[in-house]
Protein backbone atom coordinates (compact mmCIF):
# COMPACT_ATOMS: atom_id res chain seq x y z
CA UNK A 1 0.00 0.00 0.00
CA UNK A 2 1.47 3.22 -1.18
CA UNK A 3 -0.55 5.68 0.85
CA UNK A 4 -3.82 6.42 2.61
CA UNK A 5 -5.87 8.83 0.57
CA UNK A 6 -9.28 10.39 1.09
CA UNK A 7 -10.86 12.72 -1.43
CA UNK A 8 -13.37 15.56 -1.16
CA UNK A 9 -14.72 16.17 -4.64
CA UNK A 10 -16.61 19.39 -5.42
CA UNK A 11 -18.67 19.32 -8.58
CA UNK A 12 -20.69 22.13 -10.17
CA UNK A 13 -24.26 21.00 -10.69
CA UNK A 14 -25.89 21.59 -14.07
CA UNK A 15 -28.55 24.08 -12.99
CA UNK A 16 -29.66 27.18 -14.86
CA UNK A 17 -29.54 29.37 -11.76
CA UNK A 18 -27.45 29.54 -8.60
CA UNK A 19 -28.17 27.62 -5.41
CA UNK A 20 -29.62 30.50 -3.39
CA UNK A 21 -30.59 33.10 -5.99
CA UNK A 22 -31.85 33.36 -9.55
CA UNK A 23 -28.58 34.50 -11.10
CA UNK A 24 -27.56 32.54 -14.21
CA UNK A 25 -24.74 30.04 -13.80
CA UNK A 26 -23.18 30.14 -17.26
CA UNK A 27 -20.10 31.95 -18.58
CA UNK A 28 -20.37 35.73 -18.55
CA UNK A 29 -18.46 38.98 -18.23
CA UNK A 30 -17.00 39.34 -14.72
CA UNK A 31 -19.58 40.20 -12.09
CA UNK A 32 -22.47 40.15 -14.55
CA UNK A 33 -24.20 37.12 -13.01
CA UNK A 34 -24.66 38.79 -9.64
CA UNK A 35 -27.42 40.13 -7.43
CA UNK A 36 -27.71 41.39 -3.87
CA UNK A 37 -28.13 37.83 -2.58
CA UNK A 38 -24.97 36.27 -4.00
CA UNK A 39 -23.03 39.46 -3.27
CA UNK A 40 -24.04 39.20 0.37
CA UNK A 41 -25.73 42.57 0.55
CA UNK A 42 -27.19 43.41 3.99
CA UNK A 43 -30.90 42.68 4.00
CA UNK A 44 -30.69 39.89 1.41
CA UNK A 45 -31.76 36.33 2.18
CA UNK A 46 -31.15 33.00 0.38
CA UNK A 47 -33.83 31.21 -1.69
CA UNK A 48 -33.20 27.50 -2.28
CA UNK A 49 -33.07 26.09 -5.83
CA UNK A 50 -35.21 22.93 -5.96
CA UNK A 51 -33.47 21.45 -8.98
CA UNK A 52 -30.14 21.56 -7.15
CA UNK A 53 -31.70 19.37 -4.46
CA UNK A 54 -33.01 16.98 -7.10
CA UNK A 55 -29.59 16.68 -8.73
CA UNK A 56 -28.02 16.13 -5.32
CA UNK A 57 -30.53 13.36 -4.66
CA UNK A 58 -29.69 11.71 -7.99
CA UNK A 59 -26.00 11.72 -7.07
CA UNK A 60 -26.75 10.27 -3.66
CA UNK A 61 -28.92 7.50 -5.11
CA UNK A 62 -26.37 6.68 -7.81
CA UNK A 63 -23.75 6.26 -5.07
CA UNK A 64 -26.08 4.02 -3.07
CA UNK A 65 -26.34 6.43 -0.14
CA UNK A 66 -28.94 6.84 2.59
CA UNK A 67 -30.90 10.06 2.17
CA UNK A 68 -31.60 12.37 5.12
CA UNK A 69 -35.30 13.03 5.79
CA UNK A 70 -34.82 16.81 5.50
CA UNK A 71 -32.61 19.21 3.63
CA UNK A 72 -31.07 21.55 6.19
CA UNK A 73 -28.32 24.07 5.69
CA UNK A 74 -25.66 25.47 8.00
CA UNK A 75 -23.35 28.47 8.05
CA UNK A 76 -19.63 27.73 7.93
CA UNK A 77 -17.86 30.89 9.08
CA UNK A 78 -14.42 32.01 8.01
CA UNK A 79 -12.97 35.22 6.60
CA UNK A 80 -11.65 35.10 3.05
CA UNK A 81 -12.03 37.51 0.15
CA UNK A 82 -13.78 34.91 -2.03
CA UNK A 83 -16.60 34.66 0.53
CA UNK A 84 -19.22 37.41 0.03
CA UNK A 85 -20.80 36.83 3.44
CA UNK A 86 -17.65 35.52 5.15
CA UNK A 87 -19.65 32.41 5.77
CA UNK A 88 -20.53 29.69 3.33
CA UNK A 89 -24.01 28.17 3.31
CA UNK A 90 -23.32 24.45 3.34
CA UNK A 91 -24.57 21.33 5.11
CA UNK A 92 -22.94 20.32 8.35
CA UNK A 93 -24.99 18.41 10.92
CA UNK A 94 -27.31 16.82 8.47
CA UNK A 95 -25.82 16.25 5.00
CA UNK A 96 -28.09 15.31 2.14
CA UNK A 97 -26.89 11.69 2.21
CA UNK A 98 -24.43 9.37 3.94
CA UNK A 99 -22.98 5.89 3.74
CA UNK A 100 -22.60 5.02 0.06
CA UNK A 101 -19.88 3.66 -2.20
CA UNK A 102 -18.42 3.60 -5.70
CA UNK A 103 -17.31 0.28 -7.14
CA UNK A 104 -13.99 0.23 -9.02
CA UNK A 105 -13.80 -3.27 -10.42
CA UNK A 106 -13.40 -5.43 -7.34
CA UNK A 107 -12.39 -2.49 -5.13
CA UNK A 108 -15.10 -0.67 -3.19
CA UNK A 109 -14.40 2.95 -2.26
CA UNK A 110 -16.78 4.03 0.49
CA UNK A 111 -18.50 7.40 0.33
CA UNK A 112 -18.88 9.04 3.71
CA UNK A 113 -21.23 11.82 2.74
CA UNK A 114 -22.81 13.74 -0.13
CA UNK A 115 -23.97 17.27 0.49
CA UNK A 116 -24.87 20.57 -1.19
CA UNK A 117 -23.11 23.89 -0.74
CA UNK A 118 -22.47 27.17 -2.52
CA UNK A 119 -19.28 27.90 -4.42
CA UNK A 120 -17.17 30.90 -3.42
CA UNK A 121 -16.08 33.62 -5.84
CA UNK A 122 -13.12 33.46 -8.19
CA UNK A 123 -9.91 35.19 -7.15
CA UNK A 124 -7.24 36.53 -9.47
CA UNK A 125 -3.92 37.13 -7.78
CA UNK A 126 -2.35 40.14 -9.46
CA UNK A 127 1.39 40.45 -9.70
CA UNK A 128 2.23 37.01 -8.36
CA UNK A 129 0.84 33.71 -7.10
CA UNK A 130 -1.34 33.03 -4.11
CA UNK A 131 1.48 33.69 -1.67
CA UNK A 132 3.15 36.73 -3.20
CA UNK A 133 0.58 38.72 -5.17
CA UNK A 134 0.33 42.50 -4.85
CA UNK A 135 -3.45 42.58 -4.64
CA UNK A 136 -6.47 40.52 -5.58
CA UNK A 137 -9.26 40.89 -8.14
CA UNK A 138 -12.58 39.24 -7.35
CA UNK A 139 -15.20 37.93 -9.78
CA UNK A 140 -18.42 36.90 -8.05
CA UNK A 141 -20.00 35.16 -11.06
CA UNK A 142 -19.09 31.84 -9.50
CA UNK A 143 -20.20 32.83 -5.98
CA UNK A 144 -23.35 30.92 -5.13
CA UNK A 145 -23.15 28.35 -7.94
CA UNK A 146 -24.41 25.02 -6.55
CA UNK A 147 -21.83 22.39 -5.68
CA UNK A 148 -22.32 18.82 -4.69
CA UNK A 149 -19.53 17.66 -2.41
CA UNK A 150 -18.69 13.96 -2.33
CA UNK A 151 -16.44 12.88 0.53
CA UNK A 152 -14.80 9.45 0.54
CA UNK A 153 -13.48 7.43 3.42
CA UNK A 154 -9.66 7.17 3.28
CA UNK A 155 -9.99 3.94 1.31
CA UNK A 156 -7.88 4.93 -1.69
CA UNK A 157 -4.48 3.29 -1.65
CA UNK A 158 -2.47 4.92 -4.41
CA UNK A 159 -2.46 7.72 -6.94
CA UNK A 160 -3.56 5.52 -9.84
CA UNK A 161 -6.57 4.40 -7.85
CA UNK A 162 -7.36 8.01 -7.02
CA UNK A 163 -7.34 8.85 -10.72
CA UNK A 164 -9.49 5.83 -11.52
CA UNK A 165 -11.95 6.81 -8.81
CA UNK A 166 -12.28 10.34 -10.14
CA UNK A 167 -12.71 9.17 -13.71
CA UNK A 168 -15.42 6.71 -12.71
CA UNK A 169 -17.12 9.28 -10.52
CA UNK A 170 -16.99 11.84 -13.32
CA UNK A 171 -18.51 9.30 -15.68
CA UNK A 172 -21.34 8.51 -13.28
CA UNK A 173 -22.03 12.20 -12.76
CA UNK A 174 -21.99 12.79 -16.48
CA UNK A 175 -24.50 10.00 -17.03
CA UNK A 176 -26.69 11.55 -14.34
CA UNK A 177 -26.75 14.77 -16.31
CA UNK A 178 -25.61 16.78 -13.31
CA UNK A 179 -22.07 17.39 -14.48
CA UNK A 180 -20.60 18.66 -17.71
CA UNK A 181 -17.03 17.40 -18.14
CA UNK A 182 -16.16 20.04 -20.73
CA UNK A 183 -16.78 22.86 -18.27
CA UNK A 184 -13.60 24.51 -17.12
CA UNK A 185 -12.83 24.06 -13.46
CA UNK A 186 -16.16 22.42 -12.85
CA UNK A 187 -14.59 19.70 -10.70
CA UNK A 188 -12.25 20.52 -7.81
CA UNK A 189 -10.66 18.17 -5.35
CA UNK A 190 -9.26 18.47 -1.85
CA UNK A 191 -7.12 15.47 -1.04
CA UNK A 192 -6.05 14.14 2.34
CA UNK A 193 -2.84 12.12 2.10
CA UNK A 194 -0.73 10.28 4.59
CA UNK A 195 1.94 7.61 4.22
CA UNK A 196 2.82 4.75 6.52
CA UNK A 197 1.19 6.06 9.70
CA UNK A 198 2.54 9.59 9.23
CA UNK A 199 0.63 12.82 9.65
CA UNK A 200 -2.26 13.65 7.39
CA UNK A 201 -1.67 16.47 4.93
CA UNK A 202 -4.45 18.25 3.08
CA UNK A 203 -3.85 19.46 -0.47
CA UNK A 204 -6.56 21.91 -1.40
CA UNK A 205 -8.27 23.10 -4.53
CA UNK A 206 -6.80 20.85 -7.23
CA UNK A 207 -8.57 21.27 -10.55
CA UNK A 208 -8.92 18.35 -12.98
CA UNK A 209 -8.10 14.64 -12.84
CA UNK A 210 -4.64 14.96 -14.29
CA UNK A 211 -3.58 17.53 -11.71
CA UNK A 212 -4.95 15.40 -8.89
CA UNK A 213 -2.75 12.55 -10.04
CA UNK A 214 0.26 14.87 -10.33
CA UNK A 215 -0.37 16.47 -6.96
CA UNK A 216 -0.81 13.15 -5.19
CA UNK A 217 2.27 11.64 -6.81
CA UNK A 218 4.35 14.58 -5.72
CA UNK A 219 2.91 14.58 -2.22
CA UNK A 220 3.40 10.86 -1.65
CA UNK A 221 7.01 11.08 -2.76
CA UNK A 222 7.55 14.16 -0.61
CA UNK A 223 6.16 12.48 2.47
CA UNK A 224 8.05 9.24 1.91
CA UNK A 225 11.31 11.08 1.37
CA UNK A 226 10.80 13.02 4.55
CA UNK A 227 10.05 9.84 6.47
CA UNK A 228 13.06 8.09 4.97
CA UNK A 229 15.29 10.94 6.11
CA UNK A 230 13.81 10.79 9.59
CA UNK A 231 12.09 14.17 9.19
CA UNK A 232 8.64 14.89 10.58
CA UNK A 233 5.83 15.50 8.16
CA UNK A 234 3.74 18.26 9.73
CA UNK A 235 0.00 18.18 9.68
CA UNK A 236 -0.82 21.09 7.40
CA UNK A 237 -2.68 22.45 4.42
CA UNK A 238 -0.86 22.67 1.11
CA UNK A 239 -1.62 24.11 -2.29
CA UNK A 240 -0.78 22.44 -5.61
CA UNK A 241 0.98 24.64 -8.12
CA UNK A 242 -0.06 23.25 -11.51
CA UNK A 243 2.66 25.18 -13.32
CA UNK A 244 5.55 23.68 -11.37
CA UNK A 245 3.96 20.38 -10.31
CA UNK A 246 4.79 20.77 -6.62
CA UNK A 247 2.74 21.22 -3.47
CA UNK A 248 3.42 24.29 -1.38
CA UNK A 249 2.66 24.82 2.29
CA UNK A 250 -0.21 27.25 2.92
CA UNK A 251 -0.64 27.09 6.63
CA UNK A 252 0.08 24.79 9.53
CA UNK A 253 -2.88 22.98 11.00
CA UNK A 254 -2.24 22.08 14.60
CA UNK A 255 -5.92 21.71 15.27
CA UNK A 256 -9.03 21.38 13.18
CA UNK A 257 -10.26 24.65 11.71
CA UNK A 258 -13.00 26.11 13.86
CA UNK A 259 -15.81 27.15 11.56
CA UNK A 260 -18.31 27.93 14.31
CA UNK A 261 -21.19 26.19 12.56
CA UNK A 262 -24.76 27.28 13.20
CA UNK A 263 -27.90 26.13 11.45
CA UNK A 264 -28.73 28.59 8.64
CA UNK A 265 -31.46 30.67 10.31
CA UNK A 266 -32.67 32.27 7.07
CA UNK A 267 -33.82 28.89 5.77
CA UNK A 268 -36.34 26.43 7.13
CA UNK A 269 -35.94 22.71 6.59
CA UNK A 270 -37.21 21.20 3.35
CA UNK A 271 -38.79 17.77 3.59
CA UNK A 272 -37.44 15.03 1.31
CA UNK A 273 -40.81 13.37 1.08
CA UNK A 274 -40.94 9.78 -0.20
CA UNK A 275 -43.15 10.81 -3.13
CA UNK A 276 -40.66 13.44 -4.21
CA UNK A 277 -37.71 11.07 -3.87
CA UNK A 278 -39.57 8.38 -5.80
CA UNK A 279 -40.32 10.85 -8.57
CA UNK A 280 -36.66 11.85 -8.76
CA UNK A 281 -35.55 8.20 -8.69
CA UNK A 282 -37.88 7.39 -11.55
CA UNK A 283 -35.88 9.83 -13.65
CA UNK A 284 -32.59 8.08 -12.87
CA UNK A 285 -30.80 7.65 -16.19
CA UNK A 286 -28.82 4.57 -17.16
CA UNK A 287 -25.55 4.46 -15.25
CA UNK A 288 -22.18 3.40 -16.73
CA UNK A 289 -21.97 -0.12 -15.27
CA UNK A 290 -25.42 -0.99 -16.53
CA UNK A 291 -24.73 0.63 -19.89
CA UNK A 292 -21.63 -1.51 -20.38
CA UNK A 293 -23.69 -4.62 -19.76
CA UNK A 294 -26.51 -3.49 -21.98
CA UNK A 295 -24.38 -2.51 -24.96
CA UNK A 296 -22.70 -5.92 -24.88
CA UNK A 297 -26.06 -7.71 -24.61
CA UNK A 298 -27.94 -5.56 -27.04
CA UNK A 299 -25.32 -5.27 -29.77
CA UNK A 300 -23.47 -8.53 -29.31
CA UNK A 301 -20.10 -6.86 -28.74
CA UNK A 302 -17.47 -7.93 -26.25
CA UNK A 303 -17.47 -6.68 -22.67
CA UNK A 304 -14.06 -5.21 -23.33
CA UNK A 305 -15.21 -3.14 -26.31
CA UNK A 306 -18.35 -2.10 -24.49
CA UNK A 307 -16.22 -0.97 -21.58
CA UNK A 308 -13.91 1.05 -23.77
CA UNK A 309 -16.84 2.80 -25.44
CA UNK A 310 -18.70 3.63 -22.23
CA UNK A 311 -15.59 4.72 -20.33
CA UNK A 312 -14.80 7.17 -23.10
CA UNK A 313 -17.79 9.21 -22.00
CA UNK A 314 -21.47 9.68 -22.63
CA UNK A 315 -20.94 11.27 -26.03
CA UNK A 316 -19.01 8.22 -27.22
CA UNK A 317 -21.60 5.63 -26.23
CA UNK A 318 -24.31 7.79 -27.75
CA UNK A 319 -22.25 8.06 -30.93
CA UNK A 320 -21.91 4.29 -31.03
CA UNK A 321 -25.61 3.66 -30.62
CA UNK A 322 -26.53 6.31 -33.17
CA UNK A 323 -24.12 4.71 -35.63
CA UNK A 324 -25.65 1.28 -35.00
CA UNK A 325 -29.02 2.71 -35.90
CA UNK A 326 -27.62 3.65 -39.31
CA UNK A 327 -25.56 0.53 -40.15
CA UNK A 328 -26.55 -3.12 -39.96
CA UNK A 329 -23.49 -4.62 -38.26
CA UNK A 330 -22.96 -3.31 -34.70
CA UNK A 331 -19.95 -5.54 -34.14
CA UNK A 332 -18.20 -4.02 -37.13
CA UNK A 333 -19.16 -0.54 -35.99
CA UNK A 334 -17.69 -1.24 -32.56
CA UNK A 335 -14.55 -2.60 -34.06
CA UNK A 336 -13.96 0.42 -36.27
CA UNK A 337 -14.91 2.82 -33.52
CA UNK A 338 -12.58 1.34 -30.94
CA UNK A 339 -9.68 0.38 -33.16
CA UNK A 340 -9.51 3.26 -35.61
CA UNK A 341 -11.74 6.22 -34.79
CA UNK A 342 -10.92 6.49 -31.08
CA UNK A 343 -7.24 6.00 -31.80
CA UNK A 344 -7.29 8.94 -34.21
CA UNK A 345 -9.22 11.11 -31.81
CA UNK A 346 -6.79 10.36 -28.98
CA UNK A 347 -3.81 11.00 -31.22
CA UNK A 348 -5.19 14.41 -32.12
CA UNK A 349 -6.21 15.14 -28.51
CA UNK A 350 -9.84 15.56 -29.54
CA UNK A 351 -12.93 14.57 -27.66
CA UNK A 352 -15.68 13.19 -29.81
CA UNK A 353 -17.91 16.14 -29.03
CA UNK A 354 -15.42 18.77 -30.09
CA UNK A 355 -14.49 16.87 -33.24
CA UNK A 356 -16.49 17.08 -36.45
CA UNK A 357 -17.21 13.35 -36.78
CA UNK A 358 -20.84 12.36 -36.94
CA UNK A 359 -22.55 8.95 -36.90
CA UNK A 360 -23.98 9.54 -40.41
CA UNK A 361 -20.58 10.26 -41.91
CA UNK A 362 -18.70 7.68 -39.85
CA UNK A 363 -20.76 4.80 -41.20
CA UNK A 364 -19.98 6.00 -44.75
CA UNK A 365 -16.55 4.44 -44.31
CA UNK A 366 -18.14 1.03 -43.88
CA UNK A 367 -20.72 1.60 -46.59
CA UNK A 368 -18.02 2.57 -49.09
CA UNK A 369 -16.17 -0.68 -48.40
CA UNK A 370 -19.37 -2.69 -48.73
CA UNK A 371 -20.17 -0.98 -52.04
CA UNK A 372 -16.77 -1.87 -53.38
CA UNK A 373 -15.84 1.76 -53.93
CA UNK A 374 -12.73 1.64 -51.77
CA UNK A 375 -10.62 -0.99 -50.10
CA UNK A 376 -10.56 -1.59 -46.38
CA UNK A 377 -6.97 -0.49 -46.30
CA UNK A 378 -7.82 2.84 -47.89
CA UNK A 379 -10.73 3.28 -45.54
CA UNK A 380 -8.36 2.89 -42.57
CA UNK A 381 -6.04 5.49 -44.07
CA UNK A 382 -8.93 7.88 -44.58
CA UNK A 383 -9.91 7.81 -40.93
CA UNK A 384 -7.25 10.28 -39.86
CA UNK A 385 -8.20 12.85 -42.46
CA UNK A 386 -11.89 12.36 -41.75
CA UNK A 387 -11.37 12.88 -38.03
CA UNK A 388 -9.20 15.93 -38.63
CA UNK A 389 -11.50 17.66 -41.10
CA UNK A 390 -14.95 16.15 -40.59
CA UNK A 391 -15.37 16.00 -44.35
CA UNK A 392 -17.68 13.07 -45.10
CA UNK A 393 -15.74 10.07 -46.46
CA UNK A 394 -17.93 9.90 -49.59
CA UNK A 395 -16.96 13.49 -50.34
CA UNK A 396 -13.28 12.76 -49.71
CA UNK A 397 -13.35 9.80 -52.06
CA UNK A 398 -15.14 11.79 -54.76
CA UNK A 399 -12.97 14.91 -54.39
CA UNK A 400 -9.76 13.00 -54.76
CA UNK A 401 -10.90 10.29 -57.07
CA UNK A 402 -10.02 7.66 -54.53
CA UNK A 403 -12.41 5.02 -55.76
CA UNK A 404 -11.15 1.56 -56.55
CA UNK A 405 -9.55 1.32 -59.95
CA UNK A 406 -11.14 -0.93 -62.51
CA UNK A 407 -9.34 -3.95 -63.96
CA UNK A 408 -8.57 -2.13 -67.26
CA UNK A 409 -6.72 0.61 -65.28
CA UNK A 410 -4.99 -1.89 -63.01
CA UNK A 411 -3.62 -4.14 -65.74
CA UNK A 412 -1.08 -1.62 -67.14
CA UNK A 413 0.26 -1.02 -63.61
CA UNK A 414 0.56 -4.75 -62.98
CA UNK A 415 2.35 -5.18 -66.31
CA UNK A 416 4.68 -2.29 -65.52
CA UNK A 417 5.56 -3.61 -62.07
CA UNK A 418 6.28 -7.08 -63.45
CA UNK A 419 8.46 -5.60 -66.21
CA UNK A 420 10.37 -3.39 -63.79
CA UNK A 421 11.06 -6.07 -61.19
CA UNK A 422 12.79 -8.94 -62.98
CA UNK A 423 14.53 -10.04 -59.83
CA UNK A 424 11.30 -10.68 -57.99
CA UNK A 425 9.84 -12.36 -61.00
CA UNK A 426 12.83 -14.73 -61.20
CA UNK A 427 12.47 -15.43 -57.44
CA UNK A 428 8.87 -16.34 -57.99
CA UNK A 429 9.75 -18.54 -60.94
CA UNK A 430 12.42 -20.14 -58.80
CA UNK A 431 9.80 -21.26 -56.28
CA UNK A 432 9.66 -18.34 -53.86
CA UNK A 433 5.91 -17.92 -53.89
CA UNK A 434 6.08 -15.04 -51.41
CA UNK A 435 7.77 -12.91 -54.04
CA UNK A 436 4.32 -12.16 -55.40
CA UNK A 437 3.53 -10.33 -52.17
CA UNK A 438 6.39 -7.97 -52.84
CA UNK A 439 5.06 -7.30 -56.30
CA UNK A 440 1.60 -6.85 -54.78
CA UNK A 441 2.93 -4.23 -52.40
CA UNK A 442 4.54 -2.35 -55.28
CA UNK A 443 1.29 -2.28 -57.22
CA UNK A 444 -0.74 -1.09 -54.24
CA UNK A 445 1.75 1.68 -53.60
CA UNK A 446 1.54 2.94 -57.11
CA UNK A 447 -2.26 2.95 -57.14
CA UNK A 448 -2.35 4.49 -53.69
CA UNK A 449 -4.26 1.53 -52.29
CA UNK A 450 -7.08 2.04 -54.70
CA UNK A 451 -7.32 -1.67 -55.30
CA UNK A 452 -8.28 -4.76 -53.43
CA UNK A 453 -5.27 -7.00 -52.64
CA UNK A 454 -6.92 -10.22 -53.78
CA UNK A 455 -7.90 -8.66 -57.10
CA UNK A 456 -4.35 -7.40 -57.65
CA UNK A 457 -2.92 -10.78 -56.73
CA UNK A 458 -5.01 -12.61 -59.32
CA UNK A 459 -4.02 -10.05 -62.00
CA UNK A 460 -0.34 -10.54 -61.07
CA UNK A 461 -0.60 -14.32 -61.30
CA UNK A 462 -2.29 -13.96 -64.68
CA UNK A 463 0.52 -11.70 -65.89
CA UNK A 464 3.23 -13.97 -64.53
CA UNK A 465 1.52 -16.85 -66.21
CA UNK A 466 1.43 -14.92 -69.49
CA UNK A 467 5.09 -14.27 -69.04
CA UNK A 468 5.53 -17.93 -68.71
CA UNK A 469 6.97 -17.53 -65.25
CA UNK A 470 5.01 -19.98 -63.19
CA UNK A 471 6.90 -21.91 -60.56
CA UNK A 472 7.98 -25.41 -61.45
Amino acid at each position, binding site marked *: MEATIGLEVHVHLA*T*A*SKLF*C*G*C*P*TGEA*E*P*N*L*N*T*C*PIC*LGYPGSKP*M*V*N*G*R*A*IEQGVLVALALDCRLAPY*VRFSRKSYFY*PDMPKNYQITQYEEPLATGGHLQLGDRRIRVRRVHLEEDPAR*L*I*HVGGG*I*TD*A*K*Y*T*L*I*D*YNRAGVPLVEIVTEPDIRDTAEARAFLEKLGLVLEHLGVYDPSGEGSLRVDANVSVEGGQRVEVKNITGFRNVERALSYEVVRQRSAAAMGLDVSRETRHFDAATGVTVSLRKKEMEDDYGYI*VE*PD*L*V*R*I*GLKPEWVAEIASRMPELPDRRIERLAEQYGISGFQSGVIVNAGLAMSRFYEASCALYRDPVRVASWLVTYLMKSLNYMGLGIRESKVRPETFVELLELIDEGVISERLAKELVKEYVGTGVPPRTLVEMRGLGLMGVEDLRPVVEAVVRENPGAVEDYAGGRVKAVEYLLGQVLRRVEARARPDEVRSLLLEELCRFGKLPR
Partner: protein
Amino acid sequence: MLDAFSELDAVDTSGVEPSYHPVAAEGVPRGDEAKPWDWDPFLNSGHVEGRHFRGPRIT
Protein backbone atom coordinates in the same frame (compact mmCIF):
# COMPACT_ATOMS: atom_id res chain seq x y z
CA MET B 1 -22.67 37.61 30.21
CA LEU B 2 -20.71 34.51 31.01
CA ASP B 3 -23.21 34.02 33.83
CA ALA B 4 -25.81 33.57 31.14
CA PHE B 5 -23.83 30.65 29.81
CA SER B 6 -23.71 28.90 33.16
CA GLU B 7 -27.38 29.61 33.78
CA LEU B 8 -28.22 27.54 30.74
CA ASP B 9 -26.26 24.65 32.20
CA ALA B 10 -28.65 24.41 35.10
CA VAL B 11 -31.67 23.74 32.91
CA ASP B 12 -32.59 20.15 32.26
CA THR B 13 -33.11 19.76 28.54
CA SER B 14 -32.84 16.00 28.20
CA GLY B 15 -35.09 14.80 25.43
CA VAL B 16 -35.77 18.32 24.21
CA GLU B 17 -35.17 19.13 20.56
CA PRO B 18 -33.57 22.46 19.62
CA SER B 19 -35.90 25.06 18.07
CA TYR B 20 -34.05 26.66 15.17
CA HIS B 21 -37.12 28.81 14.54
CA PRO B 22 -39.91 29.64 16.97
CA VAL B 23 -42.70 28.83 14.54
CA ALA B 24 -42.63 25.53 12.71
CA ALA B 25 -42.64 25.83 8.96
CA GLU B 26 -41.50 23.68 6.12
CA GLY B 27 -39.67 25.20 3.20
CA VAL B 28 -40.72 25.17 -0.42
CA PRO B 29 -37.77 25.43 -2.81
CA ARG B 30 -38.00 27.62 -5.88
CA GLY B 31 -37.89 26.51 -9.50
CA ASP B 32 -34.62 26.64 -11.40
CA GLU B 33 -35.18 29.70 -13.61
CA ALA B 34 -32.39 32.08 -14.43
CA LYS B 35 -33.69 35.56 -13.55
CA PRO B 36 -30.90 38.13 -13.95
CA TRP B 37 -31.02 41.11 -11.61
CA ASP B 38 -30.88 44.43 -13.44
CA TRP B 39 -28.48 46.55 -11.39
CA ASP B 40 -24.99 47.97 -11.01
CA PRO B 41 -23.07 45.78 -8.54
CA PHE B 42 -20.24 48.32 -8.30
CA LEU B 43 -22.34 51.27 -7.14
CA ASN B 44 -21.53 50.88 -3.45
CA SER B 45 -17.87 49.95 -3.75
CA GLY B 46 -14.84 52.21 -3.74
CA HIS B 47 -12.50 49.40 -4.72
CA VAL B 48 -13.20 48.55 -8.34
CA GLU B 49 -10.90 47.81 -11.28
CA GLY B 50 -12.65 47.47 -14.62
CA ARG B 51 -15.31 44.87 -14.05
CA HIS B 52 -13.63 43.34 -11.01
CA PHE B 53 -13.78 44.17 -7.34
CA ARG B 54 -10.37 44.93 -5.90
CA GLY B 55 -9.27 43.39 -2.65
CA PRO B 56 -6.07 43.26 -0.63
CA ARG B 57 -3.53 40.48 -1.17
CA ILE B 58 -4.14 37.26 0.72
CA THR B 59 -1.01 36.79 2.82
